[in-house]
Structure formats: structure tokens, C-alpha cells
């Protein structure tokens, strides 16, 4: 019955009695999100090497004013705002970056930096997260263009063919679609907002849609990461082919 040292230190960053390495959770987030951020910024400002043959980079599609008639900067800057807003206000990414970048909290039952004013999403800027569904509408619009791009990527000089790029672009838009259709806001709009499925008009149909979206939604985090990586890779691939660093392999 020996007395042992004091209990829990005062709340400060990282104070915890957890025995596991809680920080391993946030490291990949910092690395991947941070890396992607840097890459995307560089690419957005680059303003070139965004298309080759039937391929167009998802960062630049739909291509707006490439000849700089009224928009003097890289066309990607116009496009990327949409996906950026969508992901930045995404319920999943919010969790990821609040934890990894704002340390709010760094991990469960782990101390935060002391003496900070916390207002969560009740005040500017984070109160803006509430517009997420408008970015969702935008994202659906983008998907239409990206599917069109993917479709086009199978036609080389108007003849059907399959290149590695076609597959990369198609896979990417498929993952983006899964990500978009597993969105929490969509889940709400599809039927989650109803209190009584069996009393609403088209209740059964909305119940089925809601259940479908819910099933996808359970894997939202998976789709968030895989589509982030795929979109980055798709752009990277197109860039590499466009600048001639690699040669697109024709499979068919």
C-alpha cells in the first residue's frame, strides 16, 4: 500500500495517463493533408501541363478561360475552390484537421494547450461550416464534368482506346463519386431529415435512399482518403505525361 506520486498533472498539451502512443493517430493526417496541400497549391499556380491527348487533370476540369481572356491567373484556381470548400467543410475532414492541426483535442482524453478561448463552430470562422451542403451541390456538378472527362479519355483521336491515363481518370472519378455520395449532408437531404419514413410521401423510397447513403456513409472516411489520393495522383499522372516525363502506356 505504498503512496505513489501525484495524480493527473494540470491540463496542458499532451497530458494524459493513456499508455498507448496516441500521437500516431494524427501523424498520417498531418503528413498526407499537409503534403497534399503543398502539392495542390504548387500545381494550382503552375497553370500548365494540365492536359494531354484525351486526358485532362481533375484540378483543371472543366477548363475555364485557358486563353486568359478575362482571368489572368491559372484556371485551376477557379476550379479548386469548389473541391477545397467541399473538403474543408466535410464533416470527416473537420474531425481530422481539428485534431491534427488545431489540437482540439489532439486525441481523446489528452490535454490541449492551456488557456485557449474555444468557440467551436459557434462563431466565425468555423460557423461557416454550416454551408457544407452548398459545396455538396457544387461537387455534384463537378462530378458530371469529371465523368465526362473520364468518358472522353477513352477516345484517342475519336477512336476508342484504353490508356493507363483512362483508367486513372475513371478510377478517380469513381472514388470521388463514392466520397460525394457518402456525404453526411446528402444523407440528411436524402431522407435523414424525415422523422417518420412511413408517414411521409414517397417515404419508402426515401427510406431506401437514406439507407443506401447511410451504408456508404459508414465508410466516408475511407472514401475521403482514397479519393484524395486518387485525385492527387490523377493530376500528377496527367502532368507527367503532359510534360513528357513519362509516356502514357496504351493498353488497347
Amino acid at each position: 500500500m505504498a503512496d505513489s506520486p501525484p495524480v493527473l498533472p494540470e491540463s496542458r498539451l499532451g497530458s494524459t495517463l493513456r499508455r498507448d502512443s496516441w500521437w500516431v493517430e494524427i501523424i498520417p493526417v498531418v503528413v498526407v493533408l499537409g503534403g497534399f496541400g503543398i502539392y495542390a497549391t504548387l500545381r494550382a499556380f503552375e497553370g500548365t501541363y494540365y492536359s494531354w491527348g484525351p486526358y485532362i487533370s481533375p484540378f483543371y476540369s472543366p477548363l475555364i478561360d485557358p486563353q486568359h481572356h478575362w482571368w489572368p491567373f491559372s484556371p485551376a484556381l477557379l476550379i479548386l475552390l469548389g473541391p477545397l470548400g467541399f473538403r474543408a467543410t466535410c464533416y470527416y475532414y473537420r474531425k481530422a484537421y481539428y485534431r491534427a492541426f488545431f489540437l482540439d483535442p489532439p486525441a481523446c482524453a489528452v490535454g490541449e494547450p492551456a488557456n485557449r478561448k474555444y468557440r467551436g463552430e459557434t462563431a466565425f470562422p468555423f460557423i461557416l461550416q454550416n454551408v457544407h451542403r452548398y459545396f455538396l451541390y457544387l461537387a455534384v456538378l463537378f462530378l458530371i464534368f469529371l465523368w465526362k472527362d473520364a468518358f472522353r479519355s477513352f477516345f484517342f483521336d475519336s477512336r476508342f482506346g484504353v490508356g493507363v491515363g483512362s483508367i486513372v481518370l475513371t478510377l478517380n472519378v469513381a472514388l470521388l463519386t463514392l466520397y460525394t455520395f457518402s456525404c453526411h449532408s446528402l444523407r440528411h437531404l436524402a431522407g435523414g431529415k424525415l422523422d417518420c419514413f412511413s408517414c411521409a410521401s414517397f417515404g419508402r423510397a426515401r427510406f431506401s435512399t437514406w439507407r443506401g447513403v447511410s451504408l456508404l456513409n459508414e465508410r466516408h472516411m475511407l472514401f475521403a482518403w482514397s479519393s484524395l489520393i486518387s485525385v492527387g495522383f490523377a493530376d500528377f499522372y496527367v502532368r507527367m505525361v503532359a510534360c513528357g516525363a513519362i509516356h502514357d502506356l496504351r493498353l488497347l
Partner: protein
Amino acid sequence: MMKEATLRVFRGDSKGGQTVDYRVPIAPGMVVLDALHYIQGHLAPDLAVRWNCKAGKCGSCSAEVNGRPRLTCKTRMDDLPVDQPITVLPMKSFPRIKDLVTDVSWNYRVNRKIPAFEPRPGVEWKISQLDVDRVQEFRKCIECFLCQNVCHVLREHDKMEQFAGPRFFVRIAGLEMHPLDGRDRAGLLKDQLGIGFCNITKCCTEVCPEEIRITDNAIIPLKERVVDEFYDPLTMLFRKFRGDKVQSV
């Protein structure tokens, strides 16, 4: 020789205290609460612990085992490393009373703020299982308050006055999505219960012993409902046209 473990248990009250080490023999299938009972029965008869069912059904025995908020009656000793002392501390977010017992009365006060179930006028008491399934998840809550304890809004930022905490979002989700309930609690959620303070970082979901998907299934859908009523110009306009009465409570 029988296997033994060392439990490092907080002993003290609101004024302060320290941890004390106790040696406890381990039996197969033993849980931390059994170990605490052993201490009570043999080493420290006045060790204060709350418990009732010892079967994970009542939510009384919450504490922090090795820094993790847990039900002590569902934490198996053989899942813990016994080569080091096992720390057992009271829940951090609530005022200490004695040893592992904390003052959770704040939760009961918050509960009072939530308007009870009120059926829509003239409902027929026929309910479809399809509508019940979603709500039953929320009704599983055993009020262990572990989610309240781990939520950083309460744990680190002490927003007891402005914020109701995950447990009560679960309760409200159960009322709001009750197929026959006629009340609207979105205004209350936004203004008095501070749902905006939740930054959906999901610690509540991680600790919930009932495996309620608190953040995904209760909080986010409620946030979306608040958006419908207060932030989305289109739905707000639509509601006005339809003449929905927004009876905030």
C-alpha cells in the same frame, strides 16, 4: 502462486488526494470492478466506488482506467498489461466527491432543459419498425456519462453552462427522430444547448460502451437540422412559404 496485479487508485476528495497502490490477486475473467471490490473487502473498506449491475447495463461504474474512460465492470483485467500498475482514476470532467465517485448532478440538470416527448395531435399509435430502428439506437444509452467526461468541450474547456454534451444530443436525437413526436428542438439545440461547440471530433463515439454512433448518427444529423432552420437560406425560405411554424422551445 496466484497471479497478482497492482492497482493504482485515486484516494481523496474534493480537496485533493493522491493515488495509492494495492496488490490484488487475479482470477480468470476478472474485471477492474472485481478488483476494486476486492480492495474494499480486504484492504480499504471505505474505498468509494459506484456500481449497480456489474453487467454493463446501468452505467454507474465509469472511471478512467490507464487514462481511458471505461466502465470498470466491462474492463477485463486480462486485457490490461499487469506488469505495470493499472491506474484507476475518477472521471476528470466532474467534481470529485470521494475516491472514484464524482458529482454527476450537472447532467441531471441539463436533462431538465430538454422538453419531453409530445405526440403530434391526433396521432394513431401505429408505428412502423422501420421508423423505430433508428431511434432505438439512441434509446440504448445507459447514462454512463463517459461521453460527457471525454468530450473536450467539457473536459478541457469547461463549457458546462453553454453546452449540453453528447449524452443529451443522443437524447434529443431520440426525441427529434421519434416518428410521433411533434416538437421542434432545433432552436434550443443551437442557442441553449450549444451544439455548435461540438467540433465532431468523435471522442464520444470512441468511448461509448453501448456503441452508439453518437457523432455520425445523432450529432451530425442534428447539426443538419439546425442548418435547415437557421443557416440554409433555401430551406428557410421554403419553410416560410409552406408556413411551417417554427415553434422554438
